[in-house]
């Protein structure tokens, strides 16, 4: 919206002395803006509004009850836990991959660049399925993981408690990856891998290596160069990548659905929980109550994104 209004104001300023060649007639302009707005309202704003309307349709009490339900709480906590693991991991991987790709020329560089994009290209169902094929009972590691000679406690996340590293001590005859918290973590990490790297690669490529080289000639070591020169230069891009990564990590459905097993209160993330409530009789409004939480997350993400673009735009102008 900010971009639209700024181009409009530029245009009106430019067209003051006389009409420019590029300026369409006012009617065409109004028609185009009208079409764009109608589309936005019909396909984006209206559905989002419906979520909140449905969430409160049975009154505020039903809404509140749906949210304080222990299974909902478990789903929220699990979702936060997954994001708390996946986002830092992918921030680290993303910065590392972007650093390699943007700052060095090496054989296999373009292959790495393609691999970074792979999770975007693959259907989420496949992203989940690959882990079932590796860690599932019939998978590559199945014989080993489901061997009663190697019993291991099952990590069940928060379960209904408050401690994220809760284990079910068994006795078990397997090492639980699929239909358990580790599988959800793996699938989420895979799906959200590209966000940070994708955001940073063009930024780092545009900035070049000169400042890093300058730091080296001034006696800084690699670590100091990264913390004092590289990181401050990419911080807004990094922040943007991180919030997008976070939004996806919390909202991912497909891949997580394949590996989760949908165990209420244990392996249900918030998106899976919403689907479960929606399919079950009598919890229709509850599903929308939970959905309103995810929608709120989306709105916060968008606000942050706009804030970053505003800051970033200012920083960009400072460079020019």
């Amino acid at each position, binding site marked *: 919206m900010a971009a639209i209004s700024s181009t409009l104001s530029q245009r009106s300023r430019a067209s003051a002395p006389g009409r420019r060649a590029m300026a369409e007639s006012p009617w065409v302009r109004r028609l185009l803006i009208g079409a764009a707005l109608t589309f936005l309202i019909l396909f984006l704003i209206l559905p989002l509004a419906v979520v909140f309307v449905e969430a409160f349709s049975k009154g505020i009490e039903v809404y509140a009850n749906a949210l304080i339900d222990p299974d909902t709480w478990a789903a929220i906590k699990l979702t936060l836990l997954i994001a708390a693991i996946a986002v830092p991991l992918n921030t680290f991987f993303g910065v590392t991959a972007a650093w390699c790709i943007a700052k060095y020329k090496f054989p296999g560089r373009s292959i790495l660049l393609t691999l970074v994009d792979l999770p975007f290209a693959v259907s989420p169902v496949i992203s989940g399925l690959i882990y079932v094929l590796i860690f599932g009972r019939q998978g590559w590691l199945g014989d080993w993981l489901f061997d009663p000679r190697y019993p291991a406690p099952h990590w069940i996340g928060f379960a209904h408690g408050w401690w994220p590293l809760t284990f079910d001590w068994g006795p078990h005859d397997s090492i639980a990856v699929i239909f358990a918290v580790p599988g959800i973590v793996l699938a989420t990490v895979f799906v959200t891998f590209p966000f940070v790297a994708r955001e940073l690669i063009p930024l780092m490529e545009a900035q070049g290596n*000169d*400042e890093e*080289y*300058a*730091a*080296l*000639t*001034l*006696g*800084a*070591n690699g670590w*100091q160069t990264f913390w*004092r*020169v590289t990181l*401050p*230069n990419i911080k807004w891009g990094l922040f943007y990548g991180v919030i997008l990564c976070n939004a996806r990590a919390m909202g991912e459905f497909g891949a997580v659905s394949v590996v989760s097993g949908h165990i209420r209160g244990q392996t249900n993330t918030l998106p899976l929980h919403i689907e479960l409530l929606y399919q079950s009789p009598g919890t229709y409004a509850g599903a929308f109550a939970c959905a309103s939480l995810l929608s709120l997350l989306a709105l916060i993400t968008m606000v942050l994104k706009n804030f970053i673009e505003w800051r970033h735009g200012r920083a960009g102008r*400072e*460079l*020019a």
Partner: protein
Amino acid sequence: MSIHAVNIRKTFGQFVALENLELKVPAGRLVALLGPSGSGKTTLLRVLAGLEYADPGSNGRVYLHGQDVTNTPPGDRGVGFVFQHYALFRHLTIFENVAFGLKVRGRKTRPPKAEIEERVNKLLELVQLPGIAHRRPHQLSGGQRQRVALARALATEPKVLLLDEPFGALDAKVRKELRRWLRRFHEQVQLTTVFVTHDQEEALELADEVVVMNNARIEQVGPPQEVYDNPATPFVFEFLGNVNRLELTTVPNVPPEATPAQGAVTYVRPHDIELLREPASDTIPVIVHHVFAAGAGARVQVVGNKTGEWFDVEMTRYDLDKLKPRYAEMVYARLRRPRIFTKPAL
């Protein structure tokens, strides 16, 4: 501190950037690496700084003050490097930029805070930019950024200063001012300095010694007047200053030791040609084509009467007024200092 680089060979894939060259810079000199783009001059500078390494197996060595620094990382070489686009840290203030080299030092060698502050302020005064310490790079003009980059490079008290195209990104007027300023600055600090440039005027005016590079090799090394007056190769002749390139047969009285080989060429500077009214034994007849006399000197374009070769002649306005050449008139040219190369220019 003297610089000595030997056997430096550097390739980027198939491209040879430096071909087994040797460079010697005595302590305290101001030396220009001059050459067209792609001649390897910036690569050589970066090898000296340690930002690039000579090809392994080429046996190349870099010595600073007799000490082998071939495998020393850039930060430990005692060199200050000024990048072509300055590479100032954009998120830091000017003060922080200049102080960077001191602040990243280990606890033992890092000067105390008050001393850093004092040194930075002194450096900013030295580059004539006091009172801008709190600003950021984007708030400065190109010339100011250039001097901040210089101050930043000097903060670590390097023994050698390396400048990559120091005036390349500035407009013509600022460039000239800054050039003179750098000359005076060098006299003041007496630091061994090597700078890269593709601008011959800049190299000739500024440097004690000019290293002319072409095609990954050094063509000639010498003081500015020496390389201008006695170019060692056709390339240097053509690259430095204006020059007329003539066929050997055009030149009267070729000395017998210069056996006219196939493709031999002769070079004459425009100001080394004299135009006369009367023919003599060592003159060639030419026809005046164009007279250009707006400026301190005059330039006359003439065509050889027999050979059809074009040449430029430069003379003083005073000489022009004496000669008064007119369009299509025949005059006689005397080539005062022709240089004959038996191999053609590349």
